[in-house]
């Protein structure tokens, strides 16, 4: 398995601002992922972040709204830009290791 940490664990933000979520892992991995879990819903993949290349976004998600960085094999950030109350969700990063995805503890975001 892997140890994954996320910062912050939770935050309350004002609409129109931006928040950057950090994901740190204890293994060097090529593929990392960012998911959103809206209240009472399942997980939806936002984008795949491979080290050394641009992130690949899923339908309905765009780089201007959710810019992602992947500077090395153990770290990634997701920024939620120009936030609105509809962005209130849990944001989770995950990594792919041995054919299995392992998830971080999540960042709980509330936008007022």
């Amino acid at each position, binding site marked *: *398995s892997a140890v994954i940490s996320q910062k912050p664990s939770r935050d309350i933000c004002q609409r129109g601002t931006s928040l950057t979520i950090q994901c740190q892992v204890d293994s060097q991995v090529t*593929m990392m*992922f960012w998911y959103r879990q809206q209240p009472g*819903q*399942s*997980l*939806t*993949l936002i984008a*795949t972040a491979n080290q050394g290349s641009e992130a690949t976004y899923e339908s309905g998600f765009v780089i201007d709204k959710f810019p992602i960085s992947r500077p090395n094999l153990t770290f990634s950030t997701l920024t939620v830009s120009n936030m609105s109350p509809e962005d209130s969700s*849990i944001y*989770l990063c*995950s990594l*792919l290791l041995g*054919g*299995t*995805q*392992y*998830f*971080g*503890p*999540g960042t*709980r975001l509330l936008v007022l």
Partner: protein
Amino acid sequence: AQSVTQLDSQVPVFEEAPVELRCNYSSSVSVYLFWYVQYPNQGLQLLLKYLSGSTLVKGINGFEAEFNKSQTSFHLRKPSVHISDTAEYFCAVSPLLTQGGSEKLVFGKGTKLTVNP
């Protein structure tokens, strides 16, 4: 493309009773199969996975699941549940790439298991 159907959104059971959480999937290619658990206010924890080999897989906390290719199912079972098993359970599939490995997961909508005393 893949899809996952979890037939029951909520499953209430009494403590020490057996439980089965159902999961069916659809895919045109071979898949890996997973069950994750999410305890209240926590992230996702891997319960068990099927990558290959024996179709009966055992996971943590006494859970097991059986892969049935003909029925495209991967139901999760536990013979005797505890109150601490109260959580949301997610079934997920990942397409098996031709070069090996897998990538993005497709999740079901989740099943909320509530264990009552």
